[in-house]
C-alpha cells in the first residue's frame, strides 16, 4: 500500500481517532500529537494491515492505544494501577439483586449530562476508552479486547465497572430529586 492509498483509507477516520485521543490524553495538543504519531506508525506498518471486517479503524485504535501507553511509560508518569478485579467484583450488587429501581418516567434524561460528563472525566483512561469503543463505536467485547490488548474478561470487567459507577451517579441524582422508587 503506498502513502496515497493509505491516506485514502485511514484519514477518513481522523475525527474518530482524535475523539479517542482526547479521551486518553485529555488535552487537544497532546491528542493531536498522539494522532499524528499513530498515523505515522500506521504508515510504517501499513503492509501488516489485513482487512478483517470492520475496516481499518479498529487497527488504528489499537495503534493509538499502543502509542499512548508507550508514551505514558516513557514519560515516567504514575502507571495506571493494575486492576483489582477482586475488589471490582466485591463492589457489584449481589447476583440476585436486579439493581436499583427508580421512577424512570420522572428522571429527566436530557439533564443528566453534566453529572455523567463529570463522572466520565473522573474515570481512568482505560475506562473512558472502553466506554467510547462501546458507546460510540459500537464495538463488541472481543473487538475492544483486541484494541486494548487485554483479555476479554478484563474488558467485561472494565465496562461493567464503568457502567456501575455511572449508574451510581444517576441513582444519586434521582435520589436528590426525590425520584427513587420503593
Amino acid at each position: 500500500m503506498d502513502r496515497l492509498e493509505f491516506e485514502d483509507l485511514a484519514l477518513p477516520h481522523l475525527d474518530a481517532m482524535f475523539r479517542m485521543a482526547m479521551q486518553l490524553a485529555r488535552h487537544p495538543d497532546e491528542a493531536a500529537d498522539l494522532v499524528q504519531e499513530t498515523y505515522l506508525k500506521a504508515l510504517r506498518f501499513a503492509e501488516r494491515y489485513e482487512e478483517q471486517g470492520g475496516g481499518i479503524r479498529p487497527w488504528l485504535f489499537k495503534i493509538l492505544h499502543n502509542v499512548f501507553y508507550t508514551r505514558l511509560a516513557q514519560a515516567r508518569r504514575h502507571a495506571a494501577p493494575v486492576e483489582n478485579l477482586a475488589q471490582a467484583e466485591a463492589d457489584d450488587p449481589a447476583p440476585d439483586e436486579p439493581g436499583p429501581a427508580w421512577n424512570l418516567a420522572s428522571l429527566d434524561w436530557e439533564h443528566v449530562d453534566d453529572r455523567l460528563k463529570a463522572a466520565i472525566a473522573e474515570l481512568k483512561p482505560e475506562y473512558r476508552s472502553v466506554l467510547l469503543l462501546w458507546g460510540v463505536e459500537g464495538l463488541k467485547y472481543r473487538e475492544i479486547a483486541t484494541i486494548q490488548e487485554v483479555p476479554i474478561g478484563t474488558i467485561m470487567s472494565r465496562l461493567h465497572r464503568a457502567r456501575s459507577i455511572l449508574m451510581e451517579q444517576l441513582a444519586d441524582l434521582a435520589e436528590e430529586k426525590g425520584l427513587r422508587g420503593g
Partner: protein
Amino acid sequence: MDERLTIQDLRRYLDGELDPDAARLIERRLDGDEPARQFVEAERRLRDRVGRIMIDSAPAAPAALEQRIRTALAAESRDAAAPAAAPAVAGRIEPDLAAASAAAAAARPQRSVFEGPSRANIYAVAATLAIIAGAILFGIFGRSIDEQAAPPAVSDVVDSAEFVSAEHTRCATSDERQARKFQMTAQEQVAAEMAAYLGVAALPDIDLSALGYAFVGGGPCMVPHAIRSAHLMYRRDAAGENGLYPMISVFMVPDQGQFDANTPLSQAPGTWQSCDGAAMEHKVLCASDGQVAYFICCCLNEDLPRLAEALKEQIGRR
C-alpha cells in the same frame, strides 16, 4: 444459564453479546420482571447518553490536523525512500569518504560567520557560474539539464524548512525515533563526527545548557536538496505545563552553492531568516556561513530568538 438474572447477564444481553438462545431466554424472563426490565431500559438510555456526551466532547479533529498529518506522512515516505546516504555503522561515518570530504573541505577557504558584511565566496560563485554556463551550453545543444544542479528556487529553502519542522515534530514526539536516529549521544563526539560526515573542516560544539537545554543526540539526516545533513536535538531540563519536555533541533546542511542568490540564505548570509511554509507546525529560522546552512526549530517558538542568538555566538567562535 443460571436461573437468576444477574446484572452481567442483562448487560451482555443489551450489548448483543449473548447467543440467540440465551438472548431469547432473557427476553422471556424480562416479560415478567418489571425491575429487571426497567434496569435494561435505564442501561440502554445510559449507553445512548454516554455515546452522545463523548461525541459532543470532541466532535471533530482540529482543522489543521489533517494537513499536518499529510505533511508528516509525505516526509516520512520521502525519508524511508532515501536511506542510502546514511552511514552503515552506528556512531561512525565511513572513514574513506569522510577523509576525502575533509581533505576537499580543508581546501575551501574558511571564514568567520556572522561578522557583519560577508566576503564573497569565490568557490561558490565560480561553481554557480559554471553550472549556469553548462546549463546554457546544454540548452543550446538541446541536451536535458535535468541532471545538472539547476539553481533551486526560493521554494527549495522553504521545502527544506518544511521538512525540518516535520522532522522536528516526529523526533520530539517519539523516543523510539530518537533512539533510532541519534546514535551519537556524547556531545564532544558529535561535532567532529558530523563535520567529517558533512565534509566541512569543523562544526561548532553547540552547548545550549545556558538556555536550560541538554544535548540528547545527533545523527545523519536527509534534509531535501542536500546530499547529506546532520540533525542535533536538545531537551529542556524542565517540563512544560503539559508535563512534556520541549525540544530544540539544529539541522546542518553543507552549503555548496545549492541555494541561489534569491534565497533567504544567500540574500543575507550570516543573518537568521524566517522560513515560512504553509504546512509548518513550528517556526524555522535558517542562516548560512557559506560552508554550512543551519536550520533551527523549537517546540516553543518563544525560545527561537534566544537559540538564534546563542548559535550566532557559538558558530562565530568556530
